[in-house]
């Protein structure tokens, strides 16, 4: 292993995080709130980062697969720990709670243990939103974008952090690709910030929500989320941006560089939009009560579909009181997740599509034992190794979801709560059903449940394999 380089890179990452802590620090100054939580965290991050850089003098930047996993896994763990410090130092949360909130932030989950959001310092809420924004497009991708020090092996880090089974470079260089993707991300965030202000949200709250929509995060500055604004236009704007965030950012880049036709032909996009349409219709039919305007029901159904499918987790209605069919739709949406290359979590549209096609091919082979029938996507044969990767992913996803369910159930929660808490964690959605539903939070769960769910969130954000590889004995063998 190239330990020195791994440590060096982690050190740099911590310095970058120290710089980002300047954002809540400025906000605290502006709102005349206490500054020490951010200064303290900054000092810790800067000291740790500087020490790591000083102690490691890498001879080269060659990374082998093992180093790649270590960098990605190590970075996310380090950043999650660091992100917990401001909550802890401010005295708002205890250790497990702070860790849960931080992991839930960076992994763009959006589950919270803060029951009363409005009494928390506004700068701290901004940090909470910012942590989601950073985690959405990826902290390592950000590092690659601004510090192009990775040549050989950099692609592996890129692949580990960008969701989806197949990853494209949109530009010849990795650093340029990372910059393009981040550029689109920043642009969309700014657009939403402006639109929300036009629709009547205060500048600060608009920023916090823009920061948590684009990464499909879901932290809100209100106890009952986006619905509390009570402005239909805001809900439509947020719906639009949640969907945009759930779409592959490579497609956004192509659209912006004038290749719109390619984007429209994208099969995964059509599938994704199809799921949105069908789920919205089912929810509208389920939820509609006679006497209400159909447009209002449609708004609520579309918002909830977009929010859960893209794994954002905002709410505008207490969906726990909806009929069972609607709840099943919500659970299925939780699992499906956004498109590959988006900031959404879950299984991802592409994996779901390919798994279904692979299933069809298997059935075909049962009936025609000698048939040659490869699985195709966009007129290209999908390699067996990609397919087996997808099946392995699904298996691991289910196993981890069951373990999570068991841990929650062991603490006395009912089945719906347990299953939904586990799924919402691994898919990085946010709210669950039952006792952790739309208007509830995770404050009442015991420490062990919080820690378990936080670990599952990390598994989900890093698409399971990275952390799973680090847990294998093979990984640590010399």
């Amino acid at each position: 292993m190239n330990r020195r380089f791994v440590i060096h890179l982690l050190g740099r990452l911590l310095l970058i995080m120290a710089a980002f802590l300047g954002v809540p620090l400025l906000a605290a100054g502006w709102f005349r709130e206490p500054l020490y939580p951010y200064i303290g965290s900054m000092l810790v991050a800067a000291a740790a980062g500087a020490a790591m850089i000083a102690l490691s003098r890498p001879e080269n930047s060659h990374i082998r697969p093992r180093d790649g996993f270590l960098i990605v896994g190590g970075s996310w763990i380090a950043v999650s720990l660091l992100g917990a410090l401001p909550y802890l130092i401010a005295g708002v949360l205890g250790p497990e709670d702070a860790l849960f909130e931080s992991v839930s932030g960076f992994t763009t989950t959006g589950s919270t243990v803060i029951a009363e959001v409005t009494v928390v310092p506004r700068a701290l809420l901004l940090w909470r939103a910012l942590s989601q924004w950073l985690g959405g497009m990826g902290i390592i991708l950000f590092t690659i974008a601004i510090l192009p020090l990775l040549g050989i092996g950099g692609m592996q880090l890129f692949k580990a952090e960008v969701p989806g089974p197949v990853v494209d470079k949109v530009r010849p260089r990795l650093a340029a690709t990372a910059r393009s993707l981040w550029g689109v991300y920043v642009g969309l965030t700014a657009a939403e910030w402006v639109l929300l202000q036009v629709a009547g949200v205060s500048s600060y709250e608009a920023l916090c929500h823009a920061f948590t929509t684009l990464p499909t995060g879901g932290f809100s500055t209100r106890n009952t989320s986006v619905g509390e604004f009570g402005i239909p236009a805001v809900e439509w704007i947020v719906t639009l941006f949640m969907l945009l965030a759930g779409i592959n950012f490579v497609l956004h880049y192509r659209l912006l560089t004038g290749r719109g036709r390619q984007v429209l032909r994208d099969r995964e996009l059509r599938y994704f939009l199809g799921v949105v349409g069908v789920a919205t219709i089912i929810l509208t039919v389920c939820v509609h009560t006679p006497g209400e305007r159909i447009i209002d029901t449609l708004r609520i159904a579309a918002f909830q579909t977009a929010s859960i499918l893209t794994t954002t987790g905002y709410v505008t209605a207490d969906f726990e009181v909806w009929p069972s069919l609607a709840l099943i739709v919500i659970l299925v949406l939780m699992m499906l997740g956004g498109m590959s290359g988006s900031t959404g979590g879950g299984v991802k549209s592409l994996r779901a599509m390919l798994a279904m096609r692979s299933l069809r091919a298997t059935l075909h082979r049962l009936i025609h034992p000698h048939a040659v029938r490869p699985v195709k996507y966009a007129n290209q044969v999908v390699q067996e190794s990609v397919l087996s990767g997808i099946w392995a992913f699904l298996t691991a996803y289910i196993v981890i979801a069951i373990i999570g369910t068991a841990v929650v159930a062991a603490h006395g929660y009912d089945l719906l709560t347990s299953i939904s808490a586990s799924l919402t964690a691994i898919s990085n959605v946010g709210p669950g059903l039952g006792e952790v539903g739309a208007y509830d939070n995770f404050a009442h769960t015991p420490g062990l449940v919080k820690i378990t769910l936080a670990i599952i969130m990390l598994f989900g954000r890093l698409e399971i394999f990275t952390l799973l590889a680090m847990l294998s004995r093979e990984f640590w063998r010399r």
Partner: protein
Amino acid sequence: MHVVIVGGGLVGSSLAEKLSGDGHDVVLVEQDRELVAELNDRLDVQTIRGNGATVPVLLQAGIENCDLLLATTDSDEVNMVVALVGSTLFKVPRVVARLRHQGHEESFNKIASEIGGEMLAINPDEATVERIMSLLPVPGAVDVVPFFDGRLLVAGFRVRPDSEFAGLMLSHLRLLFPATPMLVVAIRRDGQWTVPHGEDEIQAGDLVYFAMDVAELDNVLTLLGLRKGVERKVMIAGATRIGISLAKRLEAEDMPATLIDAVLARCEVAAAELMNTVVVHGSPTDRSLLIEEGADRAESFVACTDDHEENVVACLLARQLGTTHTFALVDNPALAGLIGDLGIDAVISPRQLAVALALQFARKGRVKAVATLMEDYVEVIDVEAAPGSRLVSAPLAELGLPRGVLVAAVRRGDRLLVPKGDDRIQPADEVLLITKTRDAARLDPFLEGER
């Protein structure tokens, strides 16, 4: 610069690595799925899977705003099509095609002169023959690269314990042998390359590269304690395109040669094409055959069969039988690295030669010639000093050249100089620079002229 490379084999991928390292945007097109996956992980370039001779794939690779197109697949015909599509349909300003067949090369050059535009055919086989021809007159050299139209040689030798150079400090070189102007430009010891300074010492067993005036060659050889063979005779193993072409060149220079090949049909082709060369049917690793044909008395043995492992074995055998100098064709860099110490004088890689030629073309403008010394760690760059560039701004010692960069020689008009620290490079001088390959990009600021 936006560069499109078609073909991800050894040549294509090395070029991609180098050009991406130079800071260009590189898109690599390759058909083989596994190769694409491997290159995509290993190199910082964009890879596209598909047939690079087709328009949609080229469009996807961004051929429309491409500045340089390199066709380096294994097939001459495909390379030809790629190059022609690029230069005619998309008006790519500079195009390189790797063509092994001389006839193809001729057709290509005719078309190129018809179309106009910068088009270059690279023939690795011809380049290999050139390289062998430049090595043969320098017995004992591991590597010989001519510069300045052949007036200056950069040649690598293994220093023998009985050589005058063993144990010598570099700064004493000039004092001890004032009549022989030469400069040590690179040393390889225990697998490590250095571009040396004055306090470094030459040790027995080192591989030392000298830059020297071609007229001084015999003096340097004597100082190195190198001897020539009993008979001025060359044995060639392998009636391949390279083997036959080499034999023809030797015939033209009146050097007696023997050509050995294990396949009768190839021997017949060779015998039909050659006039004075002795063509022998038999295995180049057959001990008694080699003795029969006088390998023990020959000066040089060149193994150029298509099986590169066999080349190594044949050379070792010839060496054991008493051939003074042996040369093997080896493309695999790992294998080439292994055999440095086995006593084979020189390892020649046709593919690396093709890479060097293409790079030379790609970096054209300031750079007249680029050569990479063995294993690719050290690069020799031949440039014309641009007026107003940093290179001519001060005496050498005060230029602040990056560490590990050496000015090996300067040609000013008709004169050849080995410069000292207080010398100044003048505009329009032709300058030979030595640098570690990975530092090559750091030289750029020195080479740029005024805008």
